């Protein structure tokens, strides 16, 4: 009886792939068409918005001195490039955001592991975490500048301050929601606490950690721009503040647009990482 049952399972798993009916072809076609329309409309919205912006500015419906316009943005990019400072500003900001992001993730995860490891420590630190989480970290900006000095390190610390506590709480929460029975399974094999961590808790928490990363991407950019607003001699945040002060809205809009692109690229990087790390999410 049992052997024939093994066969049955195998057959059931294999028959799914055979012949494709007309209905199925139609279904696949519909799915594909919908995907295409979504993409087309997305591009249209983008194109139309920029076109309207350009037209309105050219016909003086809006004042391009205040609103800038796509052609001016383009010219600004070209001019920055010709001056040789475009990639300098982009590079500095991206580097600060990247370092802040990676540090926030690694340090945050390590702190979360420590809190998971010692419930006692977790209980002690809980009120502090709650307060630090609700504190607007931007208020600490001047403190960092005085302590660390004006420059990229202070900006990176600002980024860390904004993303760290959220990462700790998010990742710790992921650790604590891992199925207790899975932990018990490892313990039945005589697994140590370290093995429980490496065999179950960490791999089971990859999706949570990735989600924390996605939140962190946004927070890192907030941190960097706030940091650059406060102290900086270069970077996109610097260009925005500078452009605002001298009423060069072209420079402000250009920086904002570049910022949007950079943030999107970094987010896609995390999505790519997710695909690599989280296999078979069921």
């Amino acid at each position: 009886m049992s052997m024939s049952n093994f066969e049955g399972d195998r057959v059931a798993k294999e028959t799914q792939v055979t012949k494709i009916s007309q209905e199925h072809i139609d279904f696949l076609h519909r799915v594909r068409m919908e995907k295409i329309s979504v993409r087309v409309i997305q591009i249209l919205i983008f194109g139309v918005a920029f076109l309207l912006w350009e037209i309105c500015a050219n016909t003086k419906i809006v004042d391009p001195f205040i609103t800038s316009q796509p052609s001016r943005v383009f010219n600004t990019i070209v001019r920055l490039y010709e001056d040789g400072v475009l990639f300098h500003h982009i590079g500095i900001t991206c580097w600060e955001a990247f370092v802040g992001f990676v540090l926030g993730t690694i340090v945050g995860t390590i702190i979360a592991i420590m809190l998971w490891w010692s419930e006692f420590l977790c209980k002690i630190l809980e009120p502090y975490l709650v307060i630090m989480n609700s504190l607007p970290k931007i208020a600490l900006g001047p403190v960092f500048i005085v302590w660390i000095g004006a420059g990229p390190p202070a900006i990176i610390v600002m980024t860390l301050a904004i993303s760290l506590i959220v990462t700790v709480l998010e990742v710790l929460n992921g650790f604590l929601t891992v199925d207790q029975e899975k932990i018990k399974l490892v313990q039945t094999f005589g697994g140590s606490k370290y093995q429980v961590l490496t065999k179950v808790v960490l791999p089971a928490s990859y999706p949570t950690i990735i989600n924390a990363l996605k939140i962190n991407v946004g927070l890192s950019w907030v941190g960097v721009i706030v940091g650059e607003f406060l102290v900086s001699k270069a970077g996109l945040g610097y260009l925005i503040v500078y452009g605002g002060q001298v009423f060069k809205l072209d420079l402000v809009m250009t920086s904002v647009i570049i910022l949007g692109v950079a943030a999107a690229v970094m987010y896609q990087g995390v999505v790519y990482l997710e695909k690599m790390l989280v296999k078979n999410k069921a």
Partner: protein
Amino acid sequence: MKPVVEVNNVGMKYQSLNGEITALENINFSVQDGEFVSIVGPSGCGKSTLLSIISGLIASTSGEVLLSGEKVTGTSPKIGYMLQKDHLFNWRTIFQNVMLGLEIRKTVTSSAKEHAIKLLKTYGLYEFKDKYPNQLSGGMRQRVALIRTLVTNPQILLLDEAFSALDYQTRLVVNDDIYDIIKKENKTALLVTHDISESISMADRVILLSKRPGKVKHIYDINFDIKNRTPFSSRETPEFRYYFQEIWKGLDVHV
């Protein structure tokens, strides 16, 4: 011959802020080599606690458990534990899942790997070894979970409601499968269940626990006058209904 498992005067009290709960009291029984023993009892009578104590996962507050004469002080490689769900890790392939216990005990050797491959082949799972758990049916997953336990070569299998997460039909089939594997591999088994039929169909003896605090109320010897007994064929015998009635009366269920 010395029993494989001896439970002597085991008692368990849980402490909480609201007071003390006596989960188990004065439990005594023993299991012989190759025997299949079921433990049934009303919910909350401490059945699972008892298994955890035998496995060394938690320490009893009184009494002792002996495995082949040795006192249990922590988890032992002699014991294989099967939980209610298969708990296969979906980030590991079937083969990697099967190797989990060996990895944790740091006993991954080429002969252990061969043993794992042999078990997968014997029980019809070899060709799925590089698949992920979500590509397998519930019955197959439970079989993988059993193989994961068997590759560590335990002498005694503790089955903690190991079938109750499966739907009824799958469960009947998996009962037969697992019973067959346990008998072939010559293991001693201790099954905790709340399902009276399941307990009778698989066991040589059924231990009935009382309501909390759990005590051994009665031990039933199960004998079927059939050749090549399987859990399924046991269910069809006239004795089966008799045992069911006896244990049902013993359980004394009031809703």
